[in-house]
C-alpha cells in the first residue's frame, strides 16, 4: 500500500464514521419519537387521580461542600415540593466555609443522637443534626470525602426506600418528585429514574422554583439548550425504550436504596460517580439475571444554570469526558458480556465508540480533512462532501431534537423563542459542536495521561 492508498482509506474511514455515528443517532431518534408519543398520550389524559397515599416516601439527599451561599434557598424550595411524604438529608462534606453554621442558624439545628447505620463504608460522621423548624430535615456533618462519599453517608442515614440525589445548585420543579416516581409506581422492577435537565439562565426564579421561562441572553447558553435537547430528548429517551440508559444526570436521580446498597453505593474513586453507578447497576443486575428497569422520564424535572463563558464550559465538558471514560472503564466486563443483553451488545459499544472515543475521531477527522485539503492531498469534492455530511447530519439531529420538543412539552411558549431556537439549531453546527468535540477530546487525553481531575 502506498501513501495515497492510506489517504484514501483514511478519508473514507472518517466519512463513513460520521455517517455511521449519525445514522446510529437517527435510529435512536426514531425510537424516542415512538416512546415519546406513547408517553405523551398517557400524560395528556392525566384524568385518573394522582394521589392515594401509596406513593413511596422519598429521602432527598443533598451533598454540600462549601455551599453557604445557596444551601438555604435550596432547602427552602424543597420544603415546597408537591409530594406526600419525603425527608431532606443535607450532607455537609467537611465544608471549609460556613455551610454548617448557615444551616444551623437558618433551620434551628440541634445535635441528634441518631444510631447511624453505616451500611456503606466511608469517612467518619461527626454529628447528625435535626431541624427544630423543619421536622423532615436532617443534616449529616462529616469529614471531607468527596461527593460520592457524601452521598453514601446520606444513603446510610436515609429512612425511606427510595432516595433522590440532588445537586445543591439544581432548581427543581414542584412536581419533580411526582414525575420521577411514576416509573416506580408503574413498574415495581424500576431501580432508578432520571429526567431532563433544562437550562435556567435568564429564567425567572421565585421561592426556588422556575416561574417564568425565557431563553438565555448568552449565545453559548442558547447552544447548550439545543445540546441538552439532543442529549436528553432523543438520546436518553431512545435508550430508555430499550432499558439501556447508561447516563442519568448527577444533578437529579431517583434510586431504589436497597439495590444501590447491594451494588456497593457510589464509587468514591471516580469523579463520575453518578454515571458510574448507573453502568454498575446495569452490570450487577444483568449479570445476576435479575429483571429490572432504569427509566428516563422525558418531563423537565430540574433546571440548572449553564456556563456562559467558554472557559467554564470547557472545564465542564473536559470533566464530563473524563467521568464518562471512568464509568465505562470501571465496568468494562459488561462489554459484549453474554448475559448483558442490549446493554452489553448495543448501548455500551455505541456509547464507547460514539461518545467516549467519538470526540477523538471527530477532531482527527476534521484535522485530517482540513489539512489534507489545504495540502492538496484531498480533492475539494471529497472535502465538500465530508463537510456536507458532517454538518448536515448535525443540523438534522438538532432539528429533530427541537421537533421532539415541539411535539411534546413546548417549554418555550413564545413564537420568537422558537424562532431563536431554530436559528440556534442551525448555527450550533458551525463552530460550537466542533469546539465541544475538541474539549471532550482534551478530556479524553487528560484521562489517558491521568491528569488529576479538578476537586468536586
Amino acid at each position, binding site marked *: 500500500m502506498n501513501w*495515497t492508498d492510506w*489517504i*484514501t*482509506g483514511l*478519508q*473514507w474511514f472518517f*466519512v463513513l464514521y460520521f*455517517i455511521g455515528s449519525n445514522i446510529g443517532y437517527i435510529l435512536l431518534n426514531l425510537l424516542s419519537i415512538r416512546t415519546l408519543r*406513547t408517553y405523551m*398520550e*398517557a400524560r*395528556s*389524559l392525566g*384524568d*385518573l*387521580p394522582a394521589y*392515594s*397515599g*401509596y*406513593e413511596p416516601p422519598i429521602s432527598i439527599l443533598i451533598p454540600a461542600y462549601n455551599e453557604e451561599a445557596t444551601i438555604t434557598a435550596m432547602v427552602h424550595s424543597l420544603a415546597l415540593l408537591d409530594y406526600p411524604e419525603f425527608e431532606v438529608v443535607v450532607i455537609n462534606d467537611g465544608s471549609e466555609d460556613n455551610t454548617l453554621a448557615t444551616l444551623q442558624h437558618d433551620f434551628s439545628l*440541634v445535635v*441528634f*443522637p*441518631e*444510631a447511624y*447505620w453505616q*451500611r456503606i463504608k466511608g469517612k467518619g460522621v461527626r454529628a447528625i443534626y*435535626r431541624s*427544630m423548624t423543619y*421536622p423532615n430535615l436532617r443534616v449529616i456533618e462529616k469529614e471531607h470525602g468527596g461527593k460520592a462519599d457524601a452521598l453514601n453517608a446520606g444513603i446510610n442515614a436515609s429512612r425511606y426506600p427510595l432516595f433522590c440525589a440532588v445537586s445543591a445548585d439544581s432548581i427543581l420543579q414542584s412536581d419533580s418528585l411526582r414525575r420521577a416516581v411514576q416509573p416506580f*409506581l*408503574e*413498574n*415495581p422492577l424500576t431501580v432508578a429514574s432520571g429526567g431532563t435537565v433544562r437550562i435556567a439562565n435568564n429564567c425567572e426564579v421565585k421561592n426556588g422554583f422556575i416561574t417564568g421561562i425565557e431563553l438565555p441572553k448568552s449565545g453559548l447558553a442558547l447552544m447548550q439548550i439545543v445540546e441538552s435537547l439532543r442529549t436528553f430528548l432523543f438520546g436518553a429517551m431512545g435508550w430508555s425504550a430499550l432499558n439501556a440508559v447508561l447516563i442519568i444526570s448527577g444533578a437529579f436521580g431517583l434510586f431504589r436504596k436497597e439495590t444501590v446498597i447491594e451494588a456497593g453505593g457510589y464509587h468514591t474513586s471516580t469523579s463520575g460517580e453518578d454515571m458510574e453507578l448507573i453502568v454498575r447497576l446495569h452490570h450487577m443486575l444483568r449479570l445476576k439475571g435479575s429483571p429490572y428497569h432504569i427509566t428516563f422520564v422525558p418531563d423537565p424535572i430540574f433546571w440548572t444554570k449553564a456556563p456562559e463563558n467558554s472557559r467554564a464550559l470547557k472545564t465542564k465538558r473536559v470533566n464530563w469526558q473524563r467521568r464518562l471514560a471512568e464509568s465505562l472503564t470501571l465496568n468494562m466486563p459488561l462489554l459484549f458480556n453474554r448475559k448483558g443483553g442490549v446493554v452489553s451488545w448495543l448501548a455500551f459499544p455505541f456509547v464507547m465508540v460514539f461518545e467516549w472515543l467519538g470526540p477523538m475521531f471527530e477532531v482527527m477527522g476534521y484535522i485530517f480533512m482540513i489539512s489534507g485539503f489545504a495540502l492538496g*492531498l*484531498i*480533492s475539494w*469534492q*471529497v472535502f465538500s*462532501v465530508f463537510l*456536507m*455530511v458532517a454538518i*448536515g*447530519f448535525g*443540523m*438534522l439531529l438538532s*432539528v*429533530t431534537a*427541537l*421537533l421532539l420538543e*415541539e*411535539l411534546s412539552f*413546548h417549554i418555550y411558549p413564545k*413564537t420568537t423563542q*422558537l424562532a431563536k431556537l*431554530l436559528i440556534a439549531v442551525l448555527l450550533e453546527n458551525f463552530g460550537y459542536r466542533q469546539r465541544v468535540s475538541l474539549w471532550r477530546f482534551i478530556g479524553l487525553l487528560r484521562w489517558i495521561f491521568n491528569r488529576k481531575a479538578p476537586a468536586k
Partner: protein
Amino acid sequence: MGFAAYSDPLLKFMLWVGLAIFGVTLLLLVQTMLLRMQLIVRQRREQRLAEQWQPLFAQSMTAVPQFLPPIAKSDWDAFLRLWNHSQESLSGESKHKLNQLAWACGMGHVAQQLLEQNNMRARLMAVTTLGHLQEKNAWAKLKRITDDPHPLLSLAAARALMQIDAKAALAELLPLFTRRHDWPLNKIANLFNEAGPDAVTGPLTQAVGSAAPEEFPRLVRLLDAAHSDEALPAIRRILQSATDDRVISACLQALRDPDDVGLARTYVRHPSWFVRVQAVSALGRVGSKNDRDALIAPLSDSVWWVRYRAAQALAGLPQVTLDEVRQIRESITDRFAQDILTQVIAEKQTA
C-alpha cells in the same frame, strides 16, 4: 487519490446523501414551525370552547340548558377533555347533571364512536367518558379492553366498569386485579376508594378463599387497600396458614386489632428480617404493656430496621412512659440496643 471529481459514482452518491440530508432538515424545520402554528390555533380554539362551555357546565348543575351549541367534530377531543376534567372535580348529584348535559350534546354516541378508533388517545378519552357517563351499553366493549396489553388503557377500562357497576365489575375484574402486575396497586386502591369498602370487601374476601398461593401477597395488599375491618378476618385466616414470607409480611402489615396480638408475637423471632420488621411494628400497633419484654430482644437484632421499629414500638406501647424506656435503656448492655433507644427517645422528645 481515491476519488477526485463528482463523476466518481461513490462520491456522486455521497453528494446526493448530503443534499438529501439538507432537504430533510429543511422539511423538518418547516414542520416544526407548522406544529407551532397548529398549536397556537388549537390553543385559541380550546380557549374559545372553554369560555363557551364552562358557564354552561355551571348552569347545568341546576338544570341542563335547553339550547346547547353544536360541537364540531374537530372540537370533540377538546370538549371531552374539558368535560372529563370537570367530572373529576365533581361528586354526587352534580356528576349526574353533567352527564345529562353530555347526553344532550350527543357525547355518549361520540364516545362509542371514538372507542372503535385505533388511536390510543381517542380510545382512552372514550373509555374515560363512558365510565363517567355510566354507559351500561358499553359494558361488553369495555370488558374486552380490560384485556388490552397497554396498562393505562386497560386500567382506565377497569375504572369505567367500576363506575358503571362496582359490584358486577369487581366480580369480573378480581382475577385481573391479582394477575395484572402492570396495574399499579395505588391506582387499584383509587378504584376501591371510589367504589367504597361496601362494594369491595365482600368480593375480595371471597376471592381469598379460592386464591392460589402465589396470588395471596397481592390479594392481601388489595384487602388492606380496601381499608375495611371486614377484611381482617380473611387476613387472619391467611396468616394462620401462611408459609410464604411475603404473604406473612403483607398480612402483618395489615393487622390493626388488639385481638391479633398473639399472631404478631408469633413472628417476632422469624428468620426473615422483613417479617420481623412487620411483626414488631404490628406489635407496636396492637400490643399492650405486656409486650414490653417481647420487644426488648429485637432491640439487639442484626438489622437496623428491626431494632428501630422495635424501639419505636416499645416507646409507643400504651402506658409505657418515656421514663420507663430510659430505664430499659439503662438496664440493657447491648450497645446497638442502647443507641437505637437513645435515638427513639430523642425523636419522641422533639416530636
